[in-house]
């Protein structure tokens, strides 16, 4: 358990150690790949988006009615003879449970898995009181014996090998144990049986708390919660108030999705519904003494918050970790404090404080994979950025991000700086288009990819010579270039201009346009992101065009999805009109001008596609670029990791280069294994990352923007 203050440097060292742990890397990778398939199979008979929407709606309603549900449940439970306690803080909860132990003379406790108990560090508290606490979920027991926290919310010991478990069990039993999983499981069966029998008290969590009937619903595979709530004479359930639901119907609705989303299982082996206190033949009057401790720990306040209330829609399935590219590289201990994965990046701030959250929250590429699978329908990437911004507002903004924000707000200054940079870098690029020696601001660890130089002549200075106004245009567009294409890869835009000409498209290039604002948002500079958003809306307002076309999926997704929200208190109508018109290049070709303008190449190449996160998930576009590739005459090859993040993530790759590098390697290996020699994508940031990585490693993969492979 990491309880001390950790510096950013120490956190990064911990990441590097994890990246060097071969077992962890393989385990995480196998899991990421296997999970994809099992989830797909688990949902094959249902409309996954629709059922997830149902769950999100059920949870959202329950969060709204939380106070009422808590009341209703408490009345019912008291009527049934259960003692209900309300704990405002983690400390209160610990104190209450310790008191119950004292009053009931409980010296030995068995527990079934509860993230809520982990949240409040219950075990340590009780152990300090001299009570023996034994976790009975196999994975939890293993991490408890190792004095660690869980590394996944559903599979707590996923970071350990059978050999490590065998060593541990050898220590515990004082008998040499084989590293055979079947046998190790039997060791646990035998060791833990004693503990159940001896225990005075059983502590469980609950997945569902049903107000109407005063019932707890607990899902496990091992069946340990059943023994924990049956053998001891006292049962204490510790539950967050966010687990409350109106009736069993809502619980069943969630239960249909939770295990499928967690591990690809249709249902857990056991689901137990306790309307306690249940029969217990060793207790007075043959009834178990039963307590429910409701934990607030900031949840009530969160439920009132317009932005963060949705955090309480989490059903703790762990899927947001399962699909996270960062989790896949570094494992759960490095991507969460107690709660793991995307949700952990958010809740750590609330439950375990800013100190534990501030480095963690930056370790996100903003790929959106978590949001796409979240059973609670939570906009996780957005909330991660909200927390990032919140922490900076509280702690003061680091100079780096402050400067970026300031510069971005002033377009002229920003563009002048970029132009100056193009001159300043001359000595370091040695006259080649690549930065052979990185400028001083980049440390050595960024060397995993060769970065391009800033162009001598940005697109904005080329536009006038490239474009002749057309008569009777097929449609009118304004081009949003984004900074990377404007200042680093103008050739990608130039290639697109040829197609526009061929299709008789009228093109405007508003010179007041600036950065889309995503980099500012990524660095927690929400205010700067809002300002540039407003500038861009203004710059495009006068154009009177049908569409705003961009060749950058990240810009498109940011302009469409984030800008309206960022400026909602300033220019909501203008923002809606603006974002409505935004289209990404391939989408514009296929849906508006038609792919027939593209002439098939006579030199087809084996072509893989990298779908930018902000294209497939941010914009929900999957087919348009493939149709364009097909029309281009190249031979498309499907790769396994087509929709996996490339590890760029803007400032992410600058903050966590070692993680970014490994995500990139994975991606390029997948392309190499497919036999493709051309890798096409639709975002200049991805081009920078992928091309730079392939060049650095001398891989024969030609990385191109989709505009560069089409002939018109």
């Amino acid at each position, binding site marked *: 358990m990491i309880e001390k203050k950790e510096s950013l440097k120490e956190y990064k060292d911990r990441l590097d150690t994890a990246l060097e742990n071969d077992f962890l890397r393989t385990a995480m990778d196998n899991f990421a790949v296997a999970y994809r398939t099992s989830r797909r199979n688990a949902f094959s008979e249902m409309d996954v988006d629709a059922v997830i929407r149902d769950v999100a709606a059920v949870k959202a309603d329950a969060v709204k009615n939380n106070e009422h549900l808590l009341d209703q449940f408490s009345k019912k439970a008291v009527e049934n003879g259960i003692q209900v306690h309300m704990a405002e803080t983690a400390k209160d909860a610990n104190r209450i449970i310790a008191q119950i132990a004292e009053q009931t003379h409980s010296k030995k406790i068995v527990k079934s898995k509860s993230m809520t108990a982990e949240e409040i560090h219950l075990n340590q508290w009780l152990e300090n009181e001299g009570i023996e606490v034994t976790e009975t979920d196999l994975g939890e027991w293993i991490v408890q014996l190792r004095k660690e926290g869980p590394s996944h919310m559903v599979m707590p010991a996923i970071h350990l090998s059978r050999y490590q478990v065998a060593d541990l069990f050898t220590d515990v039993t004082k008998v040499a144990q084989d590293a055979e999983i079947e046998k190790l499981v039997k060791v646990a*069966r035998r060791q833990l049986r004693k503990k159940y029998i001896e225990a005075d008290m059983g502590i469980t969590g609950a997945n569902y708390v*049903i107000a109407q009937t005063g019932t707890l619903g607990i899902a496990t595979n*091992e069946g340990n919660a059943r023994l924990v709530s049956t053998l001891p004479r006292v049962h204490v359930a510790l539950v967050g108030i966010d687990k409350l639901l109106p009736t*069993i119907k809502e619980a069943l609705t969630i239960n249909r999705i939770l295990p499928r989303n967690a591990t690809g299982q249709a*249902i857990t082996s056991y689901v137990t519904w306790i309307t306690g206190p249940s029969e217990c033949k060793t207790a007075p009057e043959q009834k178990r003494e039963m307590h429910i401790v409701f934990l607030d720990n900031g949840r009530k306040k969160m439920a009132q918050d317009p932005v963060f209330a949705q955090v309480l829609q989490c059903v703790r399935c762990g899927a947001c970790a399962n699909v996270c590219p960062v989790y896949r590289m570094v494992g759960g201990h490095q991507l969460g404090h107690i709660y793991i994965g995307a949700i952990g990046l958010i809740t750590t701030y609330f439950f375990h404080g800013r100190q534990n959250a501030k480095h963690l929250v930056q370790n996100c590429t903003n790929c959106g994979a978590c949001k796409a699978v979240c059973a609670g329908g939570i906009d996780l990437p957005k909330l991660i950025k909200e927390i990032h911004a919140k922490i900076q507002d509280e702690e003061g903004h680091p100079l780096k991000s402050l400067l970026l924000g300031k510069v971005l707000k002033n377009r002229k200054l920003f563009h002048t700086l970029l132009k100056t940079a193009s001159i300043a870098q001359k000595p370091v690029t040695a006259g080649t288009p690549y930065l052979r020696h990185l400028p001083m601001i980049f440390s050595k660890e960024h060397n995993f990819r060769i970065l391009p130089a800033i162009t001598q002549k940005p697109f904005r200075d080329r536009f006038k010579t490239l474009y002749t106004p057309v008569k009777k245009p097929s449609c009118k567009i304004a081009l949003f270039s984004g900074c990377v294409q404007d200042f680093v890869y103008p050739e990608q835009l130039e290639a697109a201009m040829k197609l526009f000409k061929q299709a008789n498209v009228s093109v405007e290039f508003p010179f007041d346009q600036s950065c889309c604002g995503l980099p500012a948002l990524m660095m927690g500079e929400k205010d700067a992101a809002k300002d540039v958003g407003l500038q861009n809306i203004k710059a495009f307002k006068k154009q009177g065009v049908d569409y705003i076309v961009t060749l950058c999926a990240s810009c498109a997704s940011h302009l469409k999805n984030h800008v309206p929200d960022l400026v909602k208190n300033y220019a909501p109508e203008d923002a809606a009109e603006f974002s409505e018109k935004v289209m990404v290049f391939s989408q514009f070709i296929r849906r508006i001008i038609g792919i027939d303008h593209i002439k098939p190449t006579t030199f087809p190449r084996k072509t893989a596609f990298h779908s930018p996160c902000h294209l497939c998930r941010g914009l929900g576009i999957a087919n348009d670029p493939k149709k364009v590739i097909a029309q281009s005459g190249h031979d498309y090859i499907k790769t396994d990791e087509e929709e996996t993040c490339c590890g760029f993530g803007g400032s992410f790759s600058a903050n966590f280069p070692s993680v970014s590098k490994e995500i990139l390697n994975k991606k390029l290996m997948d392309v190499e294994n497919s036999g493709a020699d051309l890798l096409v994508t639709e975002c200049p940031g991805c081009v920078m990352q992928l091309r730079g990585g392939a060049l650095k490693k001398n891989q024969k993969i030609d990385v191109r923007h989709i505009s560069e492979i089409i002939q018109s």
Partner: protein
Amino acid sequence: MSEKKIISEFVEKASMVSAIVHGVTGMEDALEKTIQICREKLPCENLMPADSNSSGKKNLAAPNMDEFHYGKLQMLCEKHGITLIKEGVRNFPGGIDMGVTMMDYGIAETGTLVLNSDSEETRLATMLCETHVAIVDKAHIRKTALEMSDELNEMTVKPSSYTAFITGASRTADIERVLALGVHGPLELHIMLIEGD
């Protein structure tokens, strides 16, 4: 969905989670099969030898069976030298060979069994046994849990109730994500499908 289809889906889904489903002609046949499985299984591994009150014979708990069939089972047990337990399963902390329970419902979508476990004996019989034999009436198999939320509500609304969904045997994948059965509860689950009267 026809009743036949529901049952075949139930069988398919239960088998997928390694439950062993037996078609039987009736209750008597089910009891005979049960005894046969009990006889063929390896003797229970006593997990708490110190607390042992074992007689060396196999033991079988059938806490929630009606008197008529319990009588039949008793005759079969006597014939084959099996100890039959109706009460006091708690006195066998090291485990019992077999728990036999009459289930309330089946759920086809997931191959799940629903068991009113209000009685401690019923609960422990299904947890402390190595092999669980679950007998369920075909007419009580429903399509999905959601479709039977009224019935489930009725079961769970009672104070002191304890309702169990059981799907396959006790399992874990906590070590290297490798599936292993019987980590705490039964190592095997047998389901007998009977035709109700």
